[in-house]
């Protein structure tokens, strides 16, 4: 299974590029759709331990140290869901068939990279898969060669490369300490000489690199630009899962498996996370552009995940994992809604919209659910994860951080309600009177995602016991 998750996307890529001429270009959407559904089924098969015994044979092709656990399973499931959504959006949003074919190839490559990130147990293969994902996204952002998209792509590529350099420098130092690059030997080396300032500095540099990749606040400059300038399906993919896998998941995995929950590491995470929560929330208040507002909201929500991780307690980490899951679902949903609005009205400026709920009922209704989940209103999923994180902060004695997290949740509700009022509520503007739902792809994607976010909220105890707690056991043995 572990190496299958990298092999299967590569086989799908080969099938997509069989020299069949126009036939494959027309069928590429269905091939990719089938592939992602197959991959999801494969994940569940593995989860229920009914995959056939060919694993060792396939593993022998790869000299890498990989393994899959419940957290990887959850993240790969999210990758597949978001990739499917992005595919459905791309069917409508990218008109040119050549560009769509290229985008479908890139999405498959990105999913191979992200699957690799989730299963890597070696710090250097982790770097390789991070770069595979990032390169696919650089190209996807600049796909239609619009001036704004090129600017976003250039900023992303520049900061991402600097993050890579920081991570590699840190890898070199850690390699010097451990003599090997696997997580296990790095961890034992850090336990022996964890107090050495050079190693602490290396850990700090690595965390800064991951903060850049995840778009946390001192290093968030590229994120709103890349999210808002990218074509609609790319921003769904980027916001929904890519920055989370390449920044946040990697941070979780490395802090748990290599760095350990040292006091210094936890303080950095708590401070960076709280700064992101505040700056993201207040910056989102003042935005006019729909997608840019969502990008700042994303920074703020990712801050909650990092704060939950920074508590270092079992409860906080469970909250962080649950918020990771929820945020991937509802932020994807909000970006799908933004894409649907942009598709059917051609507008991104929220001040020029109004009353779209009466013309686009599904988009309006699902965006209300995503909003409520994002703002933390019970009984939706986002409420539970935020409450768990805040309780974990309070219990571990970080009262100031807990108060800031609660107050920022109020600001979250404020900016999301401003968005909702400007875009969906009220009377329809006369110039938008002829607006219709953007297409079946958007409707299917938003209904499925809304169902997941509502379901995860209502069946919270079941989800928490059967998904989040096993996933946490991967981080805290």
């Amino acid at each position: 299974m572990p190496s299958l998750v990298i092999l299967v996307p590569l086989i799908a890529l080969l099938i997509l590029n069989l020299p069949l001429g126009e036939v494959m270009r027309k069928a590429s959407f269905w091939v990719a759709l089938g592939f992602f559904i197959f991959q999801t089924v494969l994940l569940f098969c593995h989860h229920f331990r009914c995959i056939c015994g060919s694993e060792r044979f396939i593993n022998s092709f790869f000299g890498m140290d990989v393994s899959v656990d419940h957290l990887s399973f959850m993240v790969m499931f999210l990758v597949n869901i978001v990739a499917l959504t992005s595919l459905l959006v791309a069917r409508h949003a990218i008109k040119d068939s050549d560009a769509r074919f290229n985008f479908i190839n890139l999405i498959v490559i990105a999913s191979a990279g992200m699957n690799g990130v989730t299963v890597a147990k070696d710090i250097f293969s982790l770097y390789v898969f991070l770069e595979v994902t990032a390169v696919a996204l650089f190209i996807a952002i600049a796909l239609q060669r619009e001036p704004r998209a090129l600017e976003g792509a250039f900023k992303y590529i520049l900061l991402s490369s600097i993050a890579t350099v920081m991570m590699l420098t840190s890898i070199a130092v850690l390699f010097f300490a451990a003599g090997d690059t696997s997580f296990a030997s790095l961890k034992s080396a850090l336990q022996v000489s964890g107090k050495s300032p050079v190693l602490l500095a290396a850990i700090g540099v690595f965390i800064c690199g991951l903060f850049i990749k995840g778009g946390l606040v001192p290093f968030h400059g590229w994120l709103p630009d890349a999210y808002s300038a990218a074509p609609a399906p790319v921003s769904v993919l980027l916001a929904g899962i890519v920055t989370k896998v390449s920044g946040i998941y990697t941070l979780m995995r490395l802090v748990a498996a290599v760095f350990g929950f040292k006091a210094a590491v936890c303080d950095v995470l708590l401070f960076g996370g709280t700064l992101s929560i505040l700056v993201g929330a207040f910056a989102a208040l003042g935005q006019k552009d729909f997608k840019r507002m969502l990008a700042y909201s994303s920074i703020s929500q990712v801050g909650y995940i990092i704060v939950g991780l920074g508590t270092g307690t079992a409860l906080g980490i469970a909250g962080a994992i649950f918020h990771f899951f929820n945020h991937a679902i509802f932020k994807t949903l909000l970006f799908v809604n933004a894409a649907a609005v942009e598709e059917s009205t051609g507008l991104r400026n929220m001040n020029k919209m109004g009353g779209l709920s009466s013309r686009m009922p599904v988009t309006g209704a699902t965006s209300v659910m995503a909003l409520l989940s994002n703002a933390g209103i019970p009984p939706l999923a986002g409420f539970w994860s935020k409450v768990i994180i805040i309780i974990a902060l309070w219990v571990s004695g970080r009262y100031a951080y807990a108060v800031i997290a609660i107050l920022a949740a109020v600001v979250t509700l404020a900016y999301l309600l401003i968005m909702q009022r400007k875009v969906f509520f009220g009377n329809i503007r006369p110039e938008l009177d002829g607006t219709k739902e953007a297409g079946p792809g958007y409707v299917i994607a938003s209904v499925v995602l809304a169902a997941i976010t509502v379901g995860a909220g209502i069946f919270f105890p079941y989800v928490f016991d059967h998904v989040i707690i096993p996933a946490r056991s991967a981080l805290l043995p």
Partner: protein
Amino acid sequence: MTQVSWPMFLMYCYFTAFVFIAGIYCILATRRLIRIMIGLELLTKGVTLLLIAVGYLMNNTGLTQALVITLIVIEVVVIATMGGIVLSVYRVHNSLESKYLRKLKW
């Protein structure tokens, strides 16, 4: 493995640091996209040299070779992608100045 004399190795380390600092300076000082690319390339080369030095000190050149070759391949892919984007920027604005890349603001 043949041993290198200590002053020689120190010189190698100084050179690595020099390449690294030159890369950082290049990125900070310039306003041209191509020069930013060259600066990034210098930075990555500095890290590559650092990895080689570490592998030499650890007496583990086999693993370092594998790492460095992978690193070079990936770096080429990233720089080629960046080159493509810079080329597209040039086609749109007919200039390589980074001042044209300041449209996205709130």
